[in-house]
């Protein structure tokens, strides 16, 4: 038997499948990437606040 080419209905379905897969991926990947960003930005913010506190303290001591 020879290879069966996809017909237009099947192609439409496959296009929909690709879109669905991609949409699902975007939703899941955003969660992961937001977590990555959150971890680092929270740490940076904390460090920056600590620095500001240190600077304030040193100014007050002067």
């Amino acid at each position, binding site marked *: *038997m020879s*290879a*069966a*080419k*996809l017909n*237009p209905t*099947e*192609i*439409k379905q*496959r*296009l929909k*499948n*690709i879109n669905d*897969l*991609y949409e*699902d*991926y975007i939703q*899941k*990947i955003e*969660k*992961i*990437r937001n*977590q*990555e*960003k959150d*971890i*680092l*930005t929270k*740490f*940076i913010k904390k*460090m*920056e606040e600590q*620095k500001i506190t240190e600077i304030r303290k040193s100014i007050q001591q002067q």
Partner: protein
Amino acid sequence: MDIEKNQDNKNEFIKSSEINQEILELKNKEKKANIKKGYSQNKELIKGLAQKAFELSNQKETELDIIQKKVKVLDKQDQELSTETENKIEQEIKESNIDHLPNYQVESEEAKLTEIISASENIQERFEEKISPDMKEAIALVCGRVFNKGTKPYELIGSNSYIAHTEYSEKISEDLDIIFSLKDLDMNLAELKTMQEEGLIKDLSTEELRKFGQEKNGCIKVSCLIKTTNGWKEMEAFAQNMHDEVVNQGKDTNGLINLGVDKHRVEVVVVNGVKVNIANEKTVEELYLKNIVNEFALYDLNGWEKKGSVSAKALQRIFNVINLDSQRFEDSINQIIENIKNIDPPTPEAEIAQKSLRNLWTQFKALPAEGTGLVKYLMTENNINIETNDNRERKVLSTEAAVDIITIETKKDMQDMSDRYQDLEKKCQEALLNSPEKSQEAIEAIDAEIKLLSITGLKYKNYLNQVNSADKNDFCVYAAMPQLRNHFILPIITRLMKNRKDLKDKIKQ
């Protein structure tokens, strides 16, 4: 995101023009490029943030180390999900280049509803690596001799398909489950009988299944043992209604998965040189979700009729669903609860299962989010050590092992409790009709049983105390316990106490 918008606009334009294979390939390339680009952009962004964090950290090396580890884990998840999606998108451009089997009726409605594609290399490799040589031998033999000669679609379901769709699992498939068309039953049975005469299979039998254990539903279960080099493998094949029976003849669907009735995609793997149809990931998920529903709704051990309880099998099913490739292990319980609602057709059983699962999930989340965690506790108690440096793999394999432990334990305890109760109940009823001495004996037996039940209860109380609700892996193991206490231990004690009172009254008379 602008790039994506432009591409989407381009796609909209394409949609309005002629539909052909090239468009599919273009779309495939675009989406895969988006995934790659998105990953690189994110990597650059994270690199920038990490650099800034490093510069600011000064002496805080330990804290930075922890953060780097967390980011590394998330980056791995990102990579895995991206690769997995690229592979799935790639699958969508493959032509249906399957050499159809000799008797397969390509133009039948059943065939039109069943898309048959080659399994991805990944799935093929997993099948090759994870399915035992004996099982592969049995699969190749029975599919080559019987099911590949069918006129309608068929596929392997159950653990053989599940294992191929999970990255981490040490499960060993013990039996072989197949669904096929009722139209092929006579022909397949005739071939199986010939094989039995040749000594290649034994214990061939058939049985018509019943809907929820009641009226017969027309699905014929064909059972036998298939000969392999090292022994025998059990096969259960289910001959079901397909499009002609359901749509033209108005019969009910009579399987959990209805191949040839709804649209399904079947993947073909090559097993010892024989092409074999296996269920794809979506079907596996659907099957396990429906199994969960059944396990919840039909649970009835020795007539206890505790619908809504979690049976040992239900635990395995829950774990199997959340361990499938596209599930993010940590946030998948919510998805299961949602997906049960979407099972088609909606049934009262699905409602019971959803309610039970949702209640358990709510109770679980209210438990303390601290401590060892039940999975880890069970690993230590049973001296199980998962040797891997991959956190996710360790997590999944530990949970799988813990689910196995608790499944065996709860199943045995429930069976023992139930059996002992039935014996004791009989003894009490007999004693009530006999001498006071017999009543005294029965009271002593009740007291001994209550002590035993208390010991069992304490064991599970200890397990519950180990649960750490911050570790979602604990849920699968936890789910077995609340109802075991409420639906088994407490009702048995209540009934025994009533019997005890009746026996005391009998002695006083």
